[in-house]
């Protein structure tokens, strides 16, 4: 009888689980490949052909009537929560678009965007379950503006196998350049290798015998920088004299590493870390060490640099975008449009000037660009449009930065930077915009 009660309880429990969780069900289609190719695609050489590349292709999942469901995953809490501001900007872009009728597709029809957000706390162990929920339970059309290199990598195979677009990743890791293997990913940032190459190119001009001390995040983000720097300095008189790895999830600070690097005799300090660790690193630099400091583009916002305790003065950066906090950029029509429409969509003054929300705003704009140019509102068509951008721009990119993509040959939308130096909370141009069209993959080290 004792055992019986246990068995009954087990049976009840399982029954409850079945009832309780059965919302959602399953939508396996038993048929094999899809027939989602459209007549107009057959004239262009499409980069993605869902009939050939995808099993169980659901090209219009998430599109119902005049609404498109979009998903995004970001660290809403935890030590990288500063990046949630990106998502705020993305959200504001869609809100603003919705308020003026919606995003326009090629046939003129307007679509309202419904953005569903999930929090993975920048932990790649958490991301797969959340992304799968977005795709299988919430039924999103695409992911847009997903934050984090390791987090996006943890779902790369799943999304590509299921032919779900991941658009405007908030990471420029060099692995997103492999569009042959993973065509459903397209980054919204420049490749970190191109950025590192821009630093080294500038160094070659102003300090050809530079001695670099490198602090790098010990994951794909930082290692992309490290490999590209090592590749770019080959054959030059620039040397990498010291390097320190840093684990962003360990909960420690970079203080000890910075102290070590300050004793290396280097005259150049490259900070290949992101999040709040970057400005904190600047604050740890001892007064006795005055290297030429270069920071990542993910660190250059007003919000981030305000945490540097004033030690952001004089740092260098490779900059592809306009900075809403820089008086020199505030008269630019793109910044004005962002400031007015962003405010109308609910962004406050510090978010607008902060420089992080504007990045998310740009991601929304990139998605809008893909939707506008796609032959139909279909996953493959949108990706194909994004991989064949022609001399366009989006978001708050600097006017001289050109945007061109060409399938796997040129999978990077942003490849242009100018070099700037921080002066009194604004940027002074040190070298004008150089566009390295199609060369991003070649800068990636190994």
């Amino acid at each position, binding site marked *: *009888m004792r055992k*019986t*009660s246990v068995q009954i309880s087990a049976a009840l429990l399982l029954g409850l689980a079945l009832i309780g969780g059965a919302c959602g069900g399953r939508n396996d289609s038993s048929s094999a490949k899809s027939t989602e190719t459209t007549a107009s695609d057959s004239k262009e050489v499409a980069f993605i052909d869902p009939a050939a590349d995808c099993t169980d292709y659901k090209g219009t999942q998430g599109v119902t009537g005049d609404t498109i469901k979009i998903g995004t995953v970001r660290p809403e*809490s935890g030590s990288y929560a500063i990046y949630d501001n990106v998502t705020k900007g993305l959200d504001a872009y869609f809100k603003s678009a919705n308020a003026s009728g919606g995003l326009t597709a090629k046939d003129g029809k307007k679509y309202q965007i419904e953005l569903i957000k999930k929090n993975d706390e920048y932990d790649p*162990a958490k991301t797969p379950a959340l992304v799968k929920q977005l795709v299988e339970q919430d039924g999103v059309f695409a992911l847009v503006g997903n934050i984090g290199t390791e987090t996006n990598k*943890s779902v790369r195979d799943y999304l590509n196998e299921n032919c779900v677009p991941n658009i405007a990743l908030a990471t420029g890791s060099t692995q997103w350049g492999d569009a042959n293997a993973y065509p459903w990913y397209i980054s919204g940032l420049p490749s970190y290798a191109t950025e590192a190459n821009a630093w080294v190119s500038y160094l070659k001009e102003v300090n050809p015998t530079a001695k670099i001390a490198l602090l790098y995040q010990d*994951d794909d983000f930082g*290692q992309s920088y490290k490999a590209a720097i090592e590749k770019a300095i080959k054959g030059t008189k620039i040397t990498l004299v010291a390097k320190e790895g840093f684990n962003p999830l360990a909960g420690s600070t970079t203080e000890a590493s910075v102290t070590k690097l300050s004793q290396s005799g280097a005259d150049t300090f490259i900070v290949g870390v992101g999040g709040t660790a970057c400005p904190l690193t600047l604050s740890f630099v001892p007064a006795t060490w005055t290297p030429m400091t270069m920071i990542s583009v993910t660190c250059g916002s007003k919000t981030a640099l305000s945490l540097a305790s004033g030690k952001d003065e004089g740092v260098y950066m490779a900059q592809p975008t306009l900075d809403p906090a820089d008086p020199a950029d505030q008269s630019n029509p793109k910044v004005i449009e962002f400031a007015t429409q962003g405010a109308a969509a609910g962004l406050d003054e510090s978010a607008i000037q902060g420089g992080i929300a504007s990045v998310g705003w740009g991601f929304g704009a990139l998605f809008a660009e893909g939707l506008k140019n796609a032959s139909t509102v279909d996953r493959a068509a949108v990706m194909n449009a994004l991989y064949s951008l022609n001399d366009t721009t989006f978001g708050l990119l600097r006017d001289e930065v050109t945007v061109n993509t060409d399938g796997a040959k040129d999978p990077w939308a942003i490849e242009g930077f100018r070099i700037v130096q921080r002066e009194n909370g604004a940027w002074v141009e040190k070298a004008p915009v150089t566009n390295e069209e199609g060369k991003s993959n070649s800068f990636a080290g190994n």
Partner: protein
Amino acid sequence: MSSASVLGQQARRTPRAWVLKVVPWAVVFVVLAIVPFEFPSFRVEQFCFWMTLAIAACGLNLLTGYNGQISVGHGALFGIGAYTTGILITEFSVPLFAASVAAAVVCFFFGLLIGLPALRIKGLYLALVTLAVATLFPLILEQFSSITGGSGGLQITSPQTYRGELRERPIRLESPFAGLANDQWKYFLFLGVTVVVFVLSRNLIKSRVGRALVAVRDNEVAAESSGIPISRVKILTFGLSAAIAGIGGSLFALNQGQLYPSSFTIVLSIYILVAVVVGGAASIVGPAIGAIFYGLFSDVIIQQLPDRIQPARAVILGVLLILLMLLAPGGVVGGFRSLQAKWVAQKNFRRARS
């Protein structure tokens, strides 16, 4: 005669009692068989994770529930099983099944390794030492990043042809049946392993060896004077318990396809212990019930709550655990048993009066 044995005799005699014994199991198996066809694949994969937790809890239950040695470090053993499997498959191209067996063996030896000093420390102190092991484990993973992939994680890959080229891609358990999706196949595979582990554990507990385990737990001095080699029993139980946790970890690795140190913190050890305690220590099925309860709480109920409350899930779990311990210290199984005993006692009382 105890009421349990009276009822046991009754069960053999009346068809009604026999039905009461068999039907619940039949319902359980039917439900388990239908589940993977009713839920989307990400849910099915979550159920697979619950099963790996159930296996680890079964292992811990042998050690803590039946043998009285507390371990708050089984998450580390789970992790050793997971990483061993991952590294063998990725670096050494070991086939999946062999890698799992190897992981269990490796964990067995780690269990012996911990079991040896455990002879000298008991109770709270043993708990603290295992706690320390569990806390250090993710740090060790990050330290030896050249082998484990460090904080960037370990992708468990094998060379597969994809989009025209041979590439290193995450492993997948391919379904050999046309009507069965990959995740469903994985579910049944895991279910099979879970059932085997639980049945073997049950057989062990009911055997002489099992009685020796319990004797050592209840009274070491009496056990020793009955001729039970307590050191050997305790060390081997640790080893076996670790091997079972390692099997759970190995299946976890096969389910995820990628491993991160953040999945193997002290929190995991606590979850496994929670599963044992909530289900009911020193019961065979308890760990499985506990794992399902924990899984329901963490993956289903918490997700339904608004986003703002979610970071407080540990607090909510803590409060629920305290309530459970006040109302049913023997866990779910213990709670049912005491309810059952009360019902039988009342029935006998009424029968005696009439």
